């Protein structure tokens, strides 16, 4: 199932559904990197609330996705990592170093807004 990408002002919101195939994740990659340019977005939120697991592939893909979006000039916030997924990721040794995370979509938007106002200040 493809990941829907919503445009919300300067931001793009991608909500990942439960069982995502590797192919869907890679498709999301291309779609987001392209849409950041198309909509001149300043930030991207990847909502993983519904994701059933974060294994090494998913973590690696999301990490590289955030780096690519950064190269395109926008910030990325990963939100909604569930407690049991956080627990499993730490035990597996998976990290999202250097990538902003937020509790949920609301906090994610607050974080993007904060980063963007800081940037616009002289």
């Amino acid at each position: 199932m493809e990941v829907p990408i919503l445009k919300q002002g300067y931001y793009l919101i991608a909500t990942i559904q439960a069982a995502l195939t590797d192919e869907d994740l890679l498709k999301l990659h291309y779609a987001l990197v392209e849409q950041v340019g198309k909509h001149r977005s300043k930030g991207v939120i990847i909502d993983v609330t519904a994701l059933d697991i974060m294994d090494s592939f998913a973590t690696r893909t999301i990490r590289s996705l955030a780096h690519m979006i950064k190269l395109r000039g926008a910030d990325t916030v990963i939100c909604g990592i569930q407690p049991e997924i956080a627990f499993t990721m730490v035990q597996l040794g998976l990290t999202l170093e250097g990538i902003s995370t937020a509790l949920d979509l609301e906090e994610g938007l607050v974080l993007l807004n904060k980063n963007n106002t800081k940037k616009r200040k002289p």
Partner: protein
Amino acid sequence: MEGSVSITVVSASDIIIARDLGRKIGKELNFSQTDLTIIATVISELARNIILFAKQGNILLSSTKQGNKVGIMISAEDKGPGIPDVFLAMQDGYSTGKGLGLGLPGVKRLMDEFEILTETGKGTKVTVIKWSI
């Protein structure tokens, strides 16, 4: 629950089938939500190694008993190239750059029992057990 299920792993969609089945078996064995996530993640990691290194293989899921403990046994078997240096494969690779990055140390940490049998040129079999409390 009796018996076991075997899933042939060839493509990425088989990974999802395998981990969903693992979750289902885990639920029947009354595992907690966290443990179900752990079980699904471990299956995902092991199945991915099969596809990446051996192209295809099998995941065997079964319930297991020891005394009054009940658990799930996950066995990942392939006839791939094998792991030449198991010691290296068991080193943490994600953060240190050492190890082979197969995720095996992480899998071992997540499970209660861990066994690996591998022979160069013949294949690899990883068997893990998680006990339900």
